[in-house]
């Protein structure tokens, strides 16, 4: 069954209203607000413009509240006013394309990368990436998890040649700052650089943020890029400093069983 063509009146109303709704400040809204009388009637208590304003004033707080919920620490670092200004610029540039507000920040990392050029750029971009990974880990898909149970003996023997796909909610991240420490301190000042490797994922309904070693991060990154387990280990060995190499040899089986326990790979 084909979908129907819309009447012209709907086109006109919705084009006008959308332009108005996505205009973030009074100046850019004015030209569209001025057309209220062309589309709407007044009531005995309110003009057409006042009635329209009920809808217009509702959009921005709703979106800003949602972004503030997802990025509480970026908000704290930037301060209330700068955070709002940046988010309004973002929403003007990238209106919501999803039925859910959960996906509102989808293009936020790219937007900041292209537009945020202050001295604290590296810290801000890292913090944004950290908070967006934590937010996504909370709601993106959980697929059936890989387990060695049910594998035949020959399949178990050939695990080394297997390519592992990570759950969509698993984020293997490297940051130039220790954001967890910074968050725990509750300071608004930027912290010193300190490289950290994190595994961010969900178990049941809970988001877990685990500090991992550089070599584990490297191994998981190779796996995520599509290497077989054997190749990923080989590449991780080649790139690992000697101290990390010992960790790789002694802890590989622990990492593997933890990955299985937490179901971070897709069946």
């Amino acid at each position: 069954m084909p979908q129907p063509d819309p009447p012209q009146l709907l086109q006109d109303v919705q084009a006008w209203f959308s332009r108005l709704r996505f205009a973030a400040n009074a100046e850019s809204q004015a030209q569209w607000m001025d057309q209220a009388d062309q589309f709407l009637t007044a009531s005995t208590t309110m003009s057409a413009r006042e009635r329209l304003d009920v809808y217009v004033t509702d959009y921005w707080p709703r979106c800003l509240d949602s972004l503030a919920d997802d990025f509480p620490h970026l908000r704290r670092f930037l301060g209330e006013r700068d955070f709002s200004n940046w988010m309004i610029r973002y929403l003007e540039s990238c209106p919501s394309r999803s039925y859910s507000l959960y996906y509102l920040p989808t293009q936020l990392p790219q937007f900041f990368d292209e537009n945020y050029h202050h001295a604290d750029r590296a810290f801000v971009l890292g913090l944004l990436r950290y908070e967006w990974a934590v937010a996504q880990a909370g709601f993106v898909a959980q697929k059936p998890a890989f387990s060695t149970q049910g594998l035949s003996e020959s399949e178990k023997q050939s695990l080394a040649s297997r390519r592992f796909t990570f759950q969509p909610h698993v984020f293997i991240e490297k940051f130039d700052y220790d954001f967890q420490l910074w968050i725990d301190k509750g300071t608004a000042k930027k912290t010193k650089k300190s490289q950290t490797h994190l595994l961010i994922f969900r178990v049941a309904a809970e988001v877990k943020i685990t500090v991992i070693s550089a070599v584990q991060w490297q191994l998981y990154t190779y796996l995520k890029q599509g290497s077989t387990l054997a190749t990923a280990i080989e590449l991780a060995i080649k790139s690992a400093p000697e101290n990390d190499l010992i960790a790789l040899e002694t802890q590989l089986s622990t990492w593997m069983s933890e990955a299985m326990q937490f179901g971070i790979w897709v069946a």
Partner: protein
Amino acid sequence: MTFKSRYHIPYLGAGLGLRAPHYPDLLQPNAGVSWLEVISENFMLDGTQSVHRLDPFLERYPIIPHGVSLSLGSVDALDKSYLKTLKKVINYLNPPWFSDHLCWAGYGGAHLHNLLPLPYTADIAAYVADKIRYVQDEIGRPFLIENVSSYVEYLDSQMPEWEFYAMVAEKADCGLLLDVNNVYVSARNHQFDPMTYITALPQDRVVQYHIAGHLDKGTFVLDSHDHPVRDEVWALFAQTVPLFGDVSLMIERDDHIPPFAELKAEMDHAQEIYTQAKVSATA
């Protein structure tokens, strides 16, 4: 044959919207709630895996999915990917019906995250009805459309909202989710008699009631869903009930969620009014 008998629509009694603070209460034996309504989109985010979070409730209650994003009145085509995911959620929950709003919520692929009213014309009624038919064909279950509260009226509307609402339902052959509070809110904002609205609706198509709170802002009334139901809405509900057959009811509260006992008391009050109004009507 009426809409309700054709689709074997059951009467579910009194229910509540499922909200996280009430999860433990609703999992207690004898919670005293007959059914639950969930926001469909909350269980579609991760490719339907999150619908399994409803398993403990599904063992105890009928669960009705209620959407906020179909955007039936938008000039944009229906989102087929959204419909595909919605269908999976609905098939899992196996509800006797599902619902969304008679409104538009996006344009040009952008979402406005609000339920916006439509101009009321025969062309637009036909357009929306065609889309509803498409949705019903895709999902394969009885579908209800809910009347939204509104704060504007369009110059080009050719009929009152109640005629439009009834016309869409008849053309689409769908059911109605009658939000009594929304009728009250719109009646105050647009100065019409709410009973004129309610008596104009096709009786056999009303399947479910929403009852909620609102805020009186002086020059207009705001549908806020964050307060207890007000006396004027209870009174309108009591007048509404005798006009229709058995209609499942539920209390909507989306913000300032009170303790379970408080919301349950409100639901029980709705059930008392419902029962009393039925008794009075037959006396």
